């Protein structure tokens, strides 16, 4: 066992040897809100390769009057942040959740998706389930406030679509989040 540990220590040392690292050329990308696009399947042989590109076109921005896009309206705020390993909706986000619950209650045609997210630590699949739990917690609060359950779908992105890159506590906190997205956005 001791030898084993020594061996791993060596592997650690070797990290200093690596050739030029390629750093991800990706900034803090904000979640894209493109509408979903039909999947293009282009099977070919060989090699069988399929493309799941989502090169959707951004919908034209609505002219004034849409409360969901008015920066002075609370409905333009869409993110609920969570503490580490927690799915409790904090007091400070209750006005936001309440506003969206009221909005969807009054718009029978409207459909909402709540997307849960986590930080990058740990198992991807377990994090997917944790993100789901956060989305579910926001939905539960909305339905308790009278929002119709059938109009709200909860999904999870787990750790797969971080808004903030990096492994700082600040980035982690930014990524422990549920986002409210309306149909067509």
């Amino acid at each position, binding site marked *: 066992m001791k030898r084993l540990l020594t061996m791993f220590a060596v592997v650690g040392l*070797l990290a200093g040897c690596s050739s030029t*690292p390629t750093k*991800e050329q990706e900034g803090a990308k904000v979640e894209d809100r493109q509408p979903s696009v039909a999947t293009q399947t282009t099977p070919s042989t*060989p090699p069988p*390769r399929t493309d799941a590109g989502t090169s959707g076109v951004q919908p034209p921005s609505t002219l004034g009057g849409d409360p969901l896009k008015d920066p002075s309206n609370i409905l333009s705020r869409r993110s609920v942040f969570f503490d580490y390993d927690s799915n409790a909706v904090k007091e400070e986000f209750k006005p936001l959740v309440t506003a969206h619950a009221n909005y969807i209650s009054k718009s029978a045609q409207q459909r909402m998706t709540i997307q849960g997210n986590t930080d990058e630590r740990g198992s991807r699949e377990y994090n997917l*389930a944790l993100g789901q739990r956060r989305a579910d917690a926001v939905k539960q609060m909305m339905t308790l406030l009278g929002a119709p359950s059938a109009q709200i779908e*909860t999904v999870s992105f*787990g750790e797969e679509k971080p808004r903030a890159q990096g492994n700082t506590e600040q980035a982690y906190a930014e990524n422990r989040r549920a986002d409210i997205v309306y149909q067509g956005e």
Partner: protein
Amino acid sequence: MNTYACYRSLLQRLFGFVIFAAAALTAAPPGHAALTIDIVGAGANQIPIAIAPFRSEEGIPQPLTPVIGADLTRSGLFKTVDTGGIVPMPSEPEQVNYAQWKTRGAEALVIGSATPLGDGRFDVRFRLMDVTKGTQLAGFQYTVAAAQLRLTAHKIADAIYEKLTGDKGVFATRITYVVKRGARYELQVADADGFGPQTVLGSNEPIISPSWSPDGTRIAYVSFERRKPVVYVQSLTTGRRTAVANFSGSNSAPAWSPDGRRLAVVLSKDGGSQMFVISAEGGGQAQRLSTSAGIDTEPNWSPDGQWILFTSDRGGSPQIYRMPSSGGQAQRMTFEGTYNVSPRHSPDGKSFTFVQRSGTRFSVAVQDFASRQVQVLTDGAVDESPSYAPNGRMILYASETRGRGILAAVSSDGRVKQRFTETGGDVREPAWGPLTNR
């Protein structure tokens, strides 16, 4: 190979470890080696084997013996004996001077030939000789196209490995993994030594949790292209893909039943994240497998189909549980620590590998079902997604070097460690494919 030279000199200077050059790295045409491998450590009893360059292999598109040598040394169970200066190099049993090889310390000798047939195909022959007894242990003949030469070398290495260790060789198997380049995700399949990577799915949205069908012809995975996790099954022969779980909410964590007909998946459609069984063809009802108030995820079928291992936080922290695949009572399997996830059965069903968090570190560990003894195999900061080679001797997993995802493998006894380094991408979510007749 500056990186490799640096590793070697560092190692030799510090600890005098023997590490092996993967000779194949220089033998292959450039551009084919998307993943290269560094090996650290060695098995307890390495078999000294001499691999005589095959007669007339030098002029052919893919010489075989460098690949065979690299395969065997990578396992950590062999050390190759120098063949330099032997004239003439034997290719038939009657040409072998056993005393000469015995002097060099070889216990086994590989001889053979690779002859162009003039129609684009090659006649490949090899024999494995017992140097001590002067007898033949194995011998095969193959007629193959140029594109099959590398695979043929892997098959020869498999035959040698099996004859000398008693275990099945896995050099001719394949692996799958996801590479992220910028904002682009690619699901790839490559040979077990990282060569010949092919992209089977490209996407601008994440792809996770690829899982091989038991016959190696299909891969199930989770794609986010519909702005939510959906489980797909894709054929590797036709490229055809089917969304097999696209229910309301999230769909994830596909795991094949041993007969290849069903998938265990995790769905949130009925609230929470719970396990269901669906048809691998898609369609039909999802049959609920687990019922808990917590998260149940990462199902994995036992090789005999009787059990499902999974991760659940029903006891407060994520731990590994086991339940009958027909449903019923779950039993907690892990007790050390507060975070044990991602279980995968060993091919013999006697143990499982998983990820254990200790402090802030995530390591690959193995637990024996009978003794419940846990052995931690790695000490990477963020080791994830372990999966067994189909002979149970190695475990492939995702690791990280300076913020970049890489693949690594460790022998199931912890003695041999390999790192696959990919040029220009972030590699994650590996899964080792099954033994197949390729």
